[in-house]
């Protein structure tokens, strides 16, 4: 058990260690990867025997409310993949330490990404829960993105990283959708339970076709199958250790892993075999052909990997009917020959400065060790009798041959024969092209030490030894006629092409490169979005405001019209006479500014409308609202009056608006009328279908016993919904910040001087402040039980201070009231947040209030915070409008 978690915790520990380590350690940081890989490998190795005996699952509670456990599964499959991931990881770490020997680039992020990748891989293959598997699966995509984009100064690397990430993560989301359909349909996300059900799973699934398609898209995207294969060759812009590790040995195998993992379940799906054999078989051929056309050494290896992945996908399409048993040998065979080939490619790039096969040649004397490794690896690649590749091929194809002439198995066998011949030609091309012929001028050699090839040699030799020593090995002469045929055809193809150099003239049509259109689409998409935003969210309010209003009206009509049926009887019943009178006046006053002459008249009738609303609040039994609206109305009137002072009799157009003609005005009137009618209708429907005031009754019933306040409005503000209020005063403070950002001294109101000249006002200013503060204190204190509270009290106090400044000048006001309003604002905000957060320290809930004697409690403290913010903001705005240049002027004007 400790080993199972240890295998996962080792990369985590290494990650943390590298995170703490200084970046200047450079490539030494990669030793952490080697250590973690080694530890994970040993841990999993120790579990091997246990896993062979029976599958184990260890679980930790994960998301208990969803009944999800974090499950670590130990069975032969997870052990096989885990050992591959950690074993190759170990070799790659050693290889990378040499690879970056002369590299000055910082490697900390790189090391972290590589370690995270290994951890994510182990997490994926050891996962016993499909959602857990998906999380780690996506994490590998993220790590892959970071690693491909290691050389992010090169556009090629950035584009390759983006392409790989988009393809693998979008297909990964399909996988998630498939997992959800599967898991919700079956009622469990645990792989063990799904496997127990086996093919029966499909009987109860609501959307079997979609589920299978989504799961397979996820697997195909990750494993670079048609039509998603194009990301893999582009991912080769990653450093070679990454290509060898992620994009050959491990990550691209995840799709195969998923098929293997779920194979007992998937086998029951309709059309499982045709889909997998068609896609996998085509990919097998496509990769083998494309490898002959590519010129970049790593791209060739990538296509060869794609071909191999295609073969495995197709194999799993048929495996359920023959019983997969040697797939582990095939997996290892590929890892053990492809990883050394990648390492050789990286070595050669350092040796010659190029990976272009057209510029390589005659390197046998210079790089004999590389030639030896390539030879061993190529023997396995072409399945030369005696090699591990041959063993794997024979083990897998023998049961297939038994199915002949079943259509899908036969088609796959034919494809395999063709691909085999193509691989022989490819091996000839690699060996002849790199090591044969005469040497070319090295383009830009950096460094290359043969010691860097030792991990490659070790892996290649391990493959050789495994192939020779494995007890399952078939006779080297098994099916010798077929083998001979493949080699002869391959050799003929090689000759026809004109030898290794002959392939240099081959070019695949650019139109076949699917990466181009996808890349172009990825370029075009943000531009399209930008244009869409520019169109819909343009900076011309004259266009977008009507657009928003029209959409709003349309939406409301769509939702409201269903209410109008035969049973809809609008409650056209009027309230009392006073309410009717006020409401009709209110309605009339809304239109009054239309007929008012001059700006001043307009804002006076507007103000009348506001005061009518105050009285309407009174008849609606809302004293707190009436008081607040009254004060706000007074301050707003001053604000608009200030604007009027700047405008005079003009009313300039806001930039972005143009004068409109008769038709435009008619349309605007129509839109406004429609808006008003729809809103009226909405309110009618709302009061018609009045729901019982369950929420209101709750507040009324609990306000006194729970919140210790008789004023339910106030207790809601400071207690029940205190978080809203906290957000609100924060918004207020932000609005204040915006005002100060826009402010400059030229904006001072022209009304200051005339007010200051009033001797009476100057005389009573101090008294006025005292009175307003007394009233404010009273309103504030009683707010919890009677109309009042922090907002109202704050507005009253702010009005007093603004009045003082109007009478005696802002500098005098600043001297009189020694606390700067902006400080008061901040203090109030801090007090409110502290009151809300302090209970956390004492183990109580956020915003839990405590009540002390005489009505003093944390609720009052919070309301005091609100009070301070409102006083500070109101005063600051008022003073700013009165006089922005406080330093220059004296109060005794």
């Amino acid at each position, binding site marked *: 058990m400790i080993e199972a978690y240890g295998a996962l915790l080792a990369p985590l520990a290494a990650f943390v260690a590298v995170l703490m380590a200084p970046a200047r350690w450079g490539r030494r940081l990669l030793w952490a990867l080697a250590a973690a890989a080694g530890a994970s490998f040993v841990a999993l190795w120790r579990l091997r025997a246990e896993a062979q005996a029976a599958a184990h699952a260890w679980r930790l509670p994960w998301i208990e409310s969803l009944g999800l456990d974090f499950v670590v599964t130990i069975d032969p499959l997870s052990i096989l993949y885990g050992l591959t991931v950690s074993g190759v990881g170990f070799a790659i770490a050693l290889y990378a330490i040499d690879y970056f020997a002369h590299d000055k680039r910082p490697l900390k992020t790189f090391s972290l990404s590589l370690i995270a990748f290994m951890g994510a891989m182990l997490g994926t293959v050891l996962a016993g829960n499909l959602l857990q598997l998906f999380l780690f699966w996506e994490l590998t995509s993220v790590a892959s993105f970071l690693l491909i984009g290691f050389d992010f100064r090169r556009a090629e690397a950035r584009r390759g990283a983006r392409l790989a990430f988009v393809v693998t993560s979008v297909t990964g989301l399909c996988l998630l959708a498939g997992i959800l359909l599967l898991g919700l349909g079956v009622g469990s996300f645990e792989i063990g339970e799904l496997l127990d059900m086996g093919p029966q799973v499909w009987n109860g699934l609501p959307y079997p076709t979609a589920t299978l398609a989504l799961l397979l898209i996820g697997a195909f995207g990750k494993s670079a199958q048609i039509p998603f294969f194009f990301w893999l060759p582009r991912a080769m812009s990653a450093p070679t250790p990454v290509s060898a590790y992620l994009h050959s040995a491990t990550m691209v195998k995840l799709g195969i892993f998923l098929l293997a993992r779920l194979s007992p379940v998937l086998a029951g799906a309709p059309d499982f075999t045709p889909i997998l054999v068609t896609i996998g078989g085509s990919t097998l051929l496509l990769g083998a052909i494309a490898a002959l056309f590519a010129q970049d050494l790593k791209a060739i290896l990538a296509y060869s990997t794609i071909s191999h992945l295609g073969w495995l996908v197709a194999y799993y399409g048929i495996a359920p009917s023959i019983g997969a048993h040697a797939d582990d040998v095939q997996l290892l065979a590929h890892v053990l020959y492809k990883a050394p080939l990648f390492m050789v490619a990286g070595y050669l790039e350092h040796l010659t400065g190029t990976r272009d096969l057209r510029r390589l040649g005659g390197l046998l004397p210079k790089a004999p060790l590389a030639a030896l490794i390539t030879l061993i690896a190529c023997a396995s690649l072409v399945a030369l009798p005696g090699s591990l590749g041959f063993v794997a091929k024979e083990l897998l194809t023998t049961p297939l041959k038994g199915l002949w002439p079943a259509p899908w198995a036969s088609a796959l066998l034919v494809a395999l024969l063709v691909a085999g011949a193509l691989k022989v030609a490819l091996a000839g091309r690699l060996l002849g092209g790199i090591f044969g012929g005469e040497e070319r001028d090295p383009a830009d050699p950096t460094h290359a030490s043969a010691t860097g090839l030792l991990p490659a040699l070790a892996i290649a030799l391990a493959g050789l030894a495994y192939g020779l020593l494995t007890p399952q090995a078939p006779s080297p002469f098994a099916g010798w006629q077929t083998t001979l045929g493949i080699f002869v055809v391959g050799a003929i193809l090689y000759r026809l092409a004109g030898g290794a150099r002959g392939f240099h003239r081959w070019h695949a049509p650019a139109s076949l490169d699917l990466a181009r259109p996808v890349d172009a689409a990825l370029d075009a998409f943000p531009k399209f979005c930008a244009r869409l935003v520019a169109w819909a969210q343009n900076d011309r309010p004259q266009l977008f405001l009507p657009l928003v209003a029209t959409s709003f009206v349309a939406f409301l009509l769509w939702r409201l019209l269903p209410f109008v049926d035969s049973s809809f009887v609008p*409650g056209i*019943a*009027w*309230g*009392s006479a006073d309410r009717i009178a006020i409401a*009709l006046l209110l309605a009339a006053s809304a*239109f009054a*500014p*239309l007929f008012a002459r001059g700006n001043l008249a*307009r804002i006076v009738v*507007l103000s009348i*409308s*506001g005061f009518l*609303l105050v009285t*309407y*609040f009174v008849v*609606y*039994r*809302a004293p707190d*609202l009436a008081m*607040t*609206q009254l004060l706000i109305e007074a301050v*707003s009137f001053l*604000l*608009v009056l*200030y*604007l009027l002072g*700047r*405008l005079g009799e003009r009313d*300039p*157009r806001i930039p*972005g*608006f143009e004068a409109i003609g008769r038709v435009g005005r008619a349309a*605007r009137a129509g*839109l406004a*009328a429609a*808006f*008003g009618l729809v*809103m*009226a*209708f909405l309110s*009618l429907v*709302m*009061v018609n279908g*009045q729901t019982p005031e369950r929420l*209101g009754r709750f507040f*009324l019933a609990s*306000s006194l016993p729970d919140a210790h306040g008789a*004023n*339910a*409005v106030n207790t*809601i*503000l400071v207690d029940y919904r205190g978080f809203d209020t906290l957000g*609100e005063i924060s918004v*207020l403070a932000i609005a*204040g910040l915006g*005002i100060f950002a*826009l402010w*400059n001294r030229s*904006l001072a109101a022209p009304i200051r001087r005339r007010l200051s000249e009033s001797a009476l006002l100057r005389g009573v200013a101090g008294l006025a402040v005292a009175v307003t503060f007394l009233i404010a204190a009273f309103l504030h204190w009683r707010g919890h039980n009677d109309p009042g509270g922090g907002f109202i009290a704050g507005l009253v106090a702010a009005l007093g201070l603004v009045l003082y400044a109007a009478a005696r000048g802002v500098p005098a006001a600043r001297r009189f009231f020694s606390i700067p309003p902006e400080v008061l604002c901040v203090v109030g905000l801090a007090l409110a947040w502290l009151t809300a957060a302090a209970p956390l320290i004492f183990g109580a809930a956020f915003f839990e209030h405590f009540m002390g004697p005489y009505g003093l409690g944390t609720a009052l403290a919070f309301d005091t915070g609100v009070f301070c913010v409102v006083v500070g903001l109101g005063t600051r705005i008022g003073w700013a409008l009165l006089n922005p240049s406080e330093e220059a002027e004296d109060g005794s004007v």
Partner: protein
Amino acid sequence: MDQFESVLAVGALFGAGLWFLLDGRALRAVIGVILLSNATNLFLLMSSGDPSGRAPPILGPANVDPVDPLPQALILTAIVIGFGVLAFLVVLLARNVEDERHPPESSHGG
């Protein structure tokens, strides 16, 4: 529910508010914003139901059914935020007018 007069007032306030907002002139836009926020507050208040014969949401000895306090609390918040936005709008417009009249020396673009 006997609130039909409120329906009329709400419709008038919303309609007139949008009309002024779409006018595109500074003072009329401010008028539009104020009318729209008043309309919204009244609209919210309507959801507390017909107030006839009911008491304010302040608990006392009176044996009368109080109205729903929740819309009132929400509106109180809305009024104060509306004021903050209005103050910002007014200063923005004032700055706009000022900059049109005396363009600032260093243009910040746009």
